[in-house]
């Protein structure tokens, strides 16, 4: 239903999203998990056709969001993170306007407004000005406009941010009920929310996908490992064999091509065991030239830790 191929987006020199590819099947609820500033919102803006990617291709329901933008947009319901609403309109007027610019016939708009007001439980407020509504109710109006035209695809950017805990529970329930009829991408930086809502999770960090899996598999993988980048001048096969045999090492991946002069490898080790010293002494004692030795950025676990910590801060 949604397909991204090698999508990259740069803002000037800053890479917001780098080479992202994934698919979402019809009816699936996909979680988009990552710390703030990871590139979740940018990716969503690209999928909705608000921003063109710098390179790569995105299709929604088979339509390219850049070259067949108008058709693709008809299949999308979108709730941006800021929940933009015309505050001088009433809920009904606003939904009516959104329906019209999405090309819905008048009688269908009327019947659908009734439906979404029902689903989002806005009955009491349908004639109120949006400026009078609380944050939680505005959120519901935002969701109501996103599902008004019965889109195949729903893009919800941080739908539970900034509303009170009871409303969070209600909003989650609402999203859960929408699954099945719609293909949903929901972004969040809250870990438990994903396991509650989604069949599959993409973890995104610094603009790159670091993991894609079902929430329960992710926690298994979480026991995980830490990765060290190692560059040296050494005979390839012998070096990988010896390093693999070290105690805490769980895996070795060669990165450099076979004929390269410098051997570059990723060493995966048991999380928490700092194997750098051991690696260094092994390499040096064999008489190989050690060129680089460093742990690479955040491991999956660290990212998860980050996410769980921000959740704790929010609930605290």
């Amino acid at each position, binding site marked *: 239903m949604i397909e991204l191929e090698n999508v990259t987006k740069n803002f000037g020199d800053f890479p917001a999203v780098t080479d992202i590819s994934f698919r979402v099947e019809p009816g699936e609820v996909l979680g988009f998990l990552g710390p703030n500033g990871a590139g979740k919102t940018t990716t969503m803006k690209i999928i909705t056709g608000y921003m063109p990617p710098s390179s790569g291709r995105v299709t929604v329901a088979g339509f390219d969001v850049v070259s067949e933008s108008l058709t693709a947009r008809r299949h999308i319901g979108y709730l941006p993170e800021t929940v*933009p609403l015309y505050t001088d309109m009433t809920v009904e007027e606003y939904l009516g306007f*959104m329906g019209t610019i999405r090309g819905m016939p008048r009688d269908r708009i009327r019947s659908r407004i009734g439906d979404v007001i029902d689903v989002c439980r806005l009955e009491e407020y349908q004639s109120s000005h949006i400026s009078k509504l609380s944050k939680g109710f505005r959120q519901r109006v935002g969701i109501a406009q996103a599902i008004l035209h019965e889109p195949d695809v729903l893009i919800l950017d941080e739908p539970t941010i900034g509303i009170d805990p009871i409303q969070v529970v209600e909003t989650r329930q609402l999203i859960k009920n929408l699954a099945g009829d719609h293909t949903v991408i929901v972004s969040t930086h809250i870990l438990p929310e994903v396991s509650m809502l989604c069949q599959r999770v993409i973890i995104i960090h610094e603009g790159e996908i670091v993991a894609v899996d079902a929430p329960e598999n992710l926690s298994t993988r979480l026991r995980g490992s830490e990765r060290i980048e190692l560059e040296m001048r050494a005979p390839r096969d012998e070096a990988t064999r010896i390093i693999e045999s070290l105690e805490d090492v769980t895996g070795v991946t060669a990165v450099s091509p076979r004929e390269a002069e410098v051997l570059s490898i990723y060493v995966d080790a048991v999380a928490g065991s700092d194997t750098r010293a051991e690696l260094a002494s092994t390499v040096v004692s064999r008489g190989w030239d050690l060129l680089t030795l460093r742990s690479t950025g955040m491991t999956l676990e660290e990212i998860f830790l980050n996410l769980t910590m921000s959740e704790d801060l929010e609930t605290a």
Partner: protein
Amino acid sequence: MKNTAAIAWKETKSYFTTPIAYIVSSMFLVLTGIFFVNDITAPFAEASVRGFINWASFFTLFLAPLLTMRLLSEEQKLGTLELLLTAPVRDWEVVVGKYLSALALYVVIMALTLYYVVLLYWFGDPDGGPIYSAYLGVFLHGAAALAVGLMASSLTGNQIVSAAVGTAVLLTLSFIDEVADLVSGVTQNVLLGFSMNNHLLDFRRGIIDTSSVAFYLSIAAVFLFLTVRFLETRRWR
């Protein structure tokens, strides 16, 4: 077309639910009214709208940006532009819809001044030709000014900045003919050719010059086009 109409209708309703339209148009009517009375009560007064038209076109340079400042700036400020541009609506449909609602309000305001014309016919014996051509001129002049104002409002999420930029561009385009007096030859002709003021002269005299009509329509078209392009660049940021 349906989208354009929907957006134009929404903006028109919005004009009448916010005080800005009432304030701006009553100010406009009071000011032009004062100058109209001044004109027809002066010694040797003539039954024409010439003086009134002069002032009306001058005040339009301030009126137009005030009417258009909200149209795209507010969408940017509220973030609703994102929803509008991800709805199956073309960018130009958004721009034209907003423009038409401002133009409609401008026509309404101008129509209210027809009351002066009624007075002229009641108490005097005015020459009809220059009045009609003057009103056509003012309409075209306003149509161009509103496009400039709309362009300014696509640049920023701040309505005040948008109004200031719009007025600055309009003042430059209007009084460029004053600069033309300082130079000569081709430069002078080019500057006169670009002056929004200069093209209004003939309309006031009762002459409808197609090149002046084309000038105002071109200004409107160019600035609407720029508005669409600026809106597109919003997508890249």
